């Protein structure tokens, strides 16, 4: 069993990274939310597996929290939101998907080289996953830059949170419980506020295109 565990963790890590790439190139908003949900599920599975192996009860709680928040609650809220905003079948024009992908690969290489000296030091079961977690954070970052619609930007933000949680889970067996709960609360409240915002933005600008939000400039 113990022989398989690092490989299994790496499998989940790869899955999370692949999903980040898929989100980078996904043009349909509905599919984007589904990809985000699968990423949350992979993250929760990794937490449970690590909890089982290391015997940390905290990791079960953390995994359960991820499952509840990232797989059930937030995707449900997002689905409801896009239905009400009537952007469910929106397709976003993405220019240059191949270029985006190439830049994404460069980011992954950069993240790995940044994390390499630290991954070597880590004695946790899945220390090697740090590079992947950092790569996910950077890919989500890039997704937020390249997208011009509000909902994909929010999903990029949440996916970045996934990458960070994955880093915390694999490298240090989870953050202290009180911090995990605090982070979860912040994320949940954040999504609620962003949801309200989207309705207000739509009301004032007649669109959810963030490119309209460019009136505030110096001079």
């Amino acid at each position, binding site marked *: 069993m113990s022989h398989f565990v690092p490989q299994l963790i790496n499998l989940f890590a790869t899955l999370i990274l692949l999903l980040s790439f898929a989100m980078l190139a996904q043009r349909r908003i509905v599919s984007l939310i589904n990809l985000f949900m699968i990423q949350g599920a992979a993250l929760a599975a990794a937490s449970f597996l690590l909890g089982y192996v290391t015997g940390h009860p905290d990791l079960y709680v953390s995994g359960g929290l991820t499952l509840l928040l990232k797989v059930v609650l937030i995707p449900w809220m997002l689905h409801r939101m896009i239905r009400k905003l009537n952007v469910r079948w929106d397709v976003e024009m993405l220019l240059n998907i191949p270029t985006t992908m190439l830049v994404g690969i460069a980011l992954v290489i950069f993240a790995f080289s940044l994390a390499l000296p630290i991954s070597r030091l880590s004695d946790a079961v899945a220390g090697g996953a740090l590079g992947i977690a950092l790569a996910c954070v950077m890919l989500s970052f890039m997704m937020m830059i390249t997208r011009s619609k*509000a909902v994909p930007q929010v999903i990029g933000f949440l996916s970045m949170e996934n990458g960070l949680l994955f880093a915390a889970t694999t490298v240090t067996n989870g953050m202290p419980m009180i911090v995990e709960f605090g982070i979860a609360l912040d994320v949940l409240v*954040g999504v609620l506020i962003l949801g309200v915002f989207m309705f207000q933005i739509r009301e004032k600008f007649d669109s959810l295109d963030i490119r309209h939000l460019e009136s505030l400039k110096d001079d």
Partner: protein
Amino acid sequence: MSALYLVLGVPLLGGLVLALVGHQPRARDINVVFSLLTFLAACVMTVEVIDGGPQFVWAKQFYIDPLNVFLVTLTAFVGLTTAIFSRPYMRIEQDHGKMTPPRMRLYHSMYQLFSFTMLLGFTTNNLGIIWVAMEAATLTTVLLVSVYRTPASLEAAWKYFILCGVGIAQALFGTILVYMAADKVLGAEDATLLWSSLSDIKGQLDPTIMSLAFVFLLIGYGTKIGLVPLHSWLPDAHAEGPTPVSAVLSGLLLNVAMYAVLRCKVLTDGALGTQMAGQLMMGFGLLSVVVAAFFISRQKDVKRMFSYSSIEHMGLITFAFGMGGPVANFAGLLHMTVHSLVKSAIFFTVGHATQKAGTQVMSEIRGLIKVNPTVGWGLMLGVMAILGMPPFGVFASEFLILTTAMREQPWATPFLFLALGVAFASMLIRVLPMVFGEETKLKPLAHPPALIPVFVHLALGLVLGLYIPAYLNGWYVAAASMLGG
């Protein structure tokens, strides 16, 4: 029982109470009462710490030492004066139709919760909770910035949320790395994010991990400090929200982020034994000072101009702490204090000036001194103070920072002088006609403004420039030596 429970409990309770009754006219007074109680509790806590030394509360989750206790008192004090200022100000906004009762309820409730998150960030001993408090402070202020629901304020709030969310995510990654470093020293069972425990073992923390962690922490919290090039959200958020919110954002929230960076710097310095953290901070700080000074000269909107001035001063403070050593740290702490006091006083006067003019465009605001001499003089004195004219406190701290820079980092002094000179000239050239201009289109205010806070702040800024009381001095010295560097 420690007074800390009251310091945190009162604003939290205030947020809940005002969420229920915040729309009523008397909510403005309730807001002041809660802020006053918070301030009194902070004073009691200060006395406790002065008498009994640093204290731990609630299983070491909270830690009060000379560094944060004075920031807590400062935050509670400016929170109180801003609540007093906000009473007539928001009443006038309501008369102008910019605020409705539901919005007033949101505003009052979030004002108290925002105070709570800042005080939590200052007092917690847990680096993870500092992060949670910073993110929560972002969430509450996002709602405060967007409270007018105008397209511009929504745009500012959205940018604020997204940019600070991304920025602060970097800080979370940094925090995870710190936890990993602690995990390697203490083992998985005893690993901790408690700052006091980490500080005890900072010499053993892995330097490779800590140096990478500090880069992420500085970028993350630096976004909230408004360090160039991560500052682009700041002028929008400070200019589009209600003026009391601009005052607390500029005067207080930036300090919380600065404080988080300082705590992390102490750990990093201990682990590395090199100047890496300080050099990074000096670089970012200097860049912020210079870039912000030139942006000040290009502004047309009065609140934007003073937001850039906040970036400039936070850059100067970052630079001072980057240099390190007892004098520069002392100057940095003093500058944090006087900047909070003077900048919020300026925003108070600017708020009423823009209400009289009905616009934030500086060329439309003329002759304040004729229509309302107190507002005019308040603005003029505030601007003189923030530009570092003697005998105000900003002069004392800037003098200390500049002389230390000349001695220790001579390469930086020409940039600092250039930036301060540009800021001085461009700000004065815009403010003089606003105050002394001839023809005036300003209208009188419907309700008398509360201008006592302005002059209390300026008087304190003046006192700190002339004479620092012995106990305050001891406090600064203790905090400065704790920061080391």
